[in-house]
């Protein structure tokens, strides 16, 4: 292996390490968000619905919510029917709720299991396949 190739590989390794470190920090932030959501689940329900819940934060002027997220959630809802409860929250109308749940941008979706534990959070658009995969692993 030439010295030049070795240097490129070393730099590649360094770059990957920095990116992994960044991803780790992002993961930790998301874990914190999930704990926060789980602690505040009773701000949404008086009684748990005993089935998975998709909590969807949106605003009326959020373009990707209308064009991508809303159709994706509709499709997931149609596919799973009564097995899933979808709760849509307009963050303009309920800013305190969005704040309590630590929502920083829209769309944001939380996937809660039947016990009310927040298991997944998607900051930004989550596509049908991803939502289905998350719900099926509950």
């Amino acid at each position, binding site marked *: 292996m030439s010295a030049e190739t070795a240097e490129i590989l070393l730099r590649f390794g360094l770059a990957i390490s920095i990116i992994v470190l*960044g991803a780790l920090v992002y993961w930790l932030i998301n874990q914190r968000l999930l704990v926060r959501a789980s602690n505040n689940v009773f701000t949404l329900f008086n009684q748990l619905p005993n089935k998975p819940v998709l909590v969807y934060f949106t605003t009326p*002027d959020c373009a990707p919510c209308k064009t991508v997220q809303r159709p994706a959630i509709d499709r997931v809802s149609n596919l799973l029917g009564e097995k899933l409860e979808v709760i849509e929250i307009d963050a303009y109308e309920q800013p305190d709720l969005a704040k309590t749940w630590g929502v920083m*941008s829209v769309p944001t979706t939380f996937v809660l299991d039947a016990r009310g534990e927040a298991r997944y959070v998607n900051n930004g658009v989550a596509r049908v396949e991803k939502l289905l995969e998350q719900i099926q692993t509950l």
Partner: protein
Amino acid sequence: MASQTLQKVDHSALKTNQLIIISLNVLAFILNLPILAAFVALVMGIGSALKIPGFGFVYKNLLKPRGWMKPDVVDDNPEPHRFAQFLGFVFMTAGSIALFLGATVLGWSLVWLVVMLAALNAFGGFCVGCAVYYWLSRFNLPGFNKQPPTGTFPGMKPGVGASR
């Protein structure tokens, strides 16, 4: 907070700009190409001068027309984003000069700083340069006269908690 007129800002153009800056800078580091980092600095400088996202032309001419990225138009102030890009340009220029002068640790540290701030913006929705702009506006500095959209935390993407 004083009322102000917001403009339509396409955050997809900003995100494209950030993602290209991240990609090119990481590539410049891996291949040890200070000239590529200098090119990124140059494009960011041109973007700052023209008051547009430097690599926004990729979004405008390629990604948007082909539907590969959808517009994400938000009521927002464009000035803080321009300032953020200008800050990035300053860091990238300083980093490039350091690299050409042989101060590689300093140079690549500055380049990675820009990568991290761009990533925070692209993936976390928090614009540090915008937050600095809004912080400076509190001191009534000339040219820093915009306030965050009502209910929006300075630097965060408007939407959550912002008034209609």
